[in-house]
């Protein structure tokens, strides 16, 4: 773990007040490597280390802390800072009660959109609302069935329409939801590549119909260096209101969280922690920072 590696390199307690240049260099090198191994984007890792260098140069090693502990504390603070502090927890307390709340889930193939739609629907149901799940994926075999099975398992309504294109289906579901008083309305879309112009245009068309109050990019927590490009492309096409990182129950360090938040500027709202509909929680930067620092 990074904190252990730093401890090994920088040794025990000392009477000197500051870290010397050589110590800062070796400490920063370890941090940069750890960030890259955690799949943090290269540019983001570099920027992070550069900011940290300035902080370390002027930091006084506390009497009760080893140099490694001092560095870890600063890294932890900087990470929580970049990740928006407790903004996700605050946003998770958003109440959609009393206002019609359509929401979209978008992202690459297999990232966990459909499963996440079910998780959000269950949260809203537990908050006393009447959510509606809408399957807009007409391409993947049994995608619509998957949504209706999930809906049945969590005791939530699923819309089954007759329209034959995702845009028309969205329109149909929207008017059904308004008429029957369902809210929030969760639109589960088909997975698509951010470089597929036709499908990205379809997303814009769906957004125009749905007029969502939330647009969530569902991304795999174990995504590598491409996380930034992917998030950026989706954000440019349909302005994101949040990112949900799925599959955080793997042993991935989830560097994509730092990369996406810093570069795209969209908050990481939730993390998926398993396959069951109750396995979702607000994103806690403190926890993520401790996880990366080991």
């Amino acid at each position: 773990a990074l904190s252990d590696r730093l401890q090994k390199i920088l040794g025990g307690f000392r009477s000197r007040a500051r870290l010397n240049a050589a110590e800062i260099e070796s400490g920063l090198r370890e941090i940069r490597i750890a960030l890259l191994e955690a799949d943090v984007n290269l540019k983001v890792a570099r920027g992070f280390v550069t900011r940290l260098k300035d902080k370390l140069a002027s930091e006084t090693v506390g009497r009760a802390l080893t140099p490694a502990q001092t560095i870890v504390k600063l890294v932890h603070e900087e990470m929580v800072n970049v990740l928006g502090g407790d903004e996700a927890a605050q946003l998770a307390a958003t109440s959609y009660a009393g206002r019609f709340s359509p929401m979209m889930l978008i992202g690459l193939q297999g990232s966990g959109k459909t499963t996440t739609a079910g998780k959000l629907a269950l949260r809203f149901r537990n908050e006393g609302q009447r959510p509606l799940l809408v399957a807009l994926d007409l391409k993947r075999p049994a995608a619509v069935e998957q949504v209706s099975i999930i809906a049945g398992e969590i005791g939530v309504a699923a819309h089954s329409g007759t329209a034959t294109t995702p845009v028309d289906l969205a329109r149909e579901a929207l008017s059904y939801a308004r008429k029957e008083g369902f809210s929030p309305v969760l639109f589960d879309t088909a997975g698509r590549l951010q470089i597929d112009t036709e499908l990205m245009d379809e997303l814009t068309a769906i957004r125009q119909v749905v007029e969502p109050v939330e647009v969530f990019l569902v991304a795999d927590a174990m995504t590598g260096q491409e996380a930034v490009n992917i998030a950026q492309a989706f954000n440019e096409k349909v302005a994101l209101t949040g990112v949900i990182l799925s599959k955080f129950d793997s042993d991935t360090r989830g560097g994509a969280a730092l990369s996406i938040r810093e570069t795209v500027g969209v908050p990481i709202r939730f993390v998926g922690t398993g396959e069951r509909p109750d396995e979702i929680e607000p994103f806690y930067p403190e926890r993520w920072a401790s996880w990366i620092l080991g």
Partner: protein
Amino acid sequence: ATGEAELGEEYYSELHDALILADIGAALAEKTVSWLRTTSSEQGVSSSEVARQLLKQRLTEMLATEEPKPLFADERLNVILFAGVNGTGKTTMLAKIARLLLDENLSVVAAAADTFRAAAVEQLSIWGQRVGFPVITGAQGADPASVVYNTVEHALAQGKHAVLIDTAGRMQTKTALMDELSKIGRAARKVVEKRGEDPDEKLHEVNLLVLDATTGQNAISQAKLFSEAIALHGLVLNKIDGTAKGGVIFPVVATAQVPVMFLGVGEDVDDIVEFDAAEFASALLD
């Protein structure tokens, strides 16, 4: 720029960045760049074109493994198992490989051994109908190994050439699920042993780990822990039609010593490519 200055600091720094961005990982990126520095100076290389050739050669060699097992063997029941973490494209790849085998006039039957996920069996059944292979199912929540057992029994009785096993996505860190996978991996042999026959003579088993090209360094952990649950004979790298280069496959092959067999290049049944290391290395460097 041409001439001596071509392989200067800027060249190596840009190369290092390109390798990292391709998900090859910090350790291997550093090792590869230092190898190129040494080799270039030893061989008096000064042009980036020659350096690229050296690099491509080196990367290609990294993907070579000893004694790769063929996907298919005559005179035996071929059992091909698709394993991997959630959402990597296992079910879709099974359909693609079924298509390849059917095109060779081989008979195929699939075992719907994902008895857990919503609509997993329905998804595979639809592929079976589209592509033209029967799918043997069990009850929702049934023991996956029992579905494999029944399918292998059926395949032996009917003289089928291949059984393709679809398994549920699972995180490599969940011991109970990895134990379940080990059990699934033993099911075919149990059928043969029960008939009093030798599984090593009767079966040709190929266990494939299906990886997503967008995955970062976690693929290394996936390969390690999956290989502890079942013997791995091949890797599949899916979604290479996206922008991710799938460079993590280099440290994965280095640690797992298992060859890449196929690339998934899209969502349709014919979006499959037989893996070619040199082509892959070349594409990575572009």
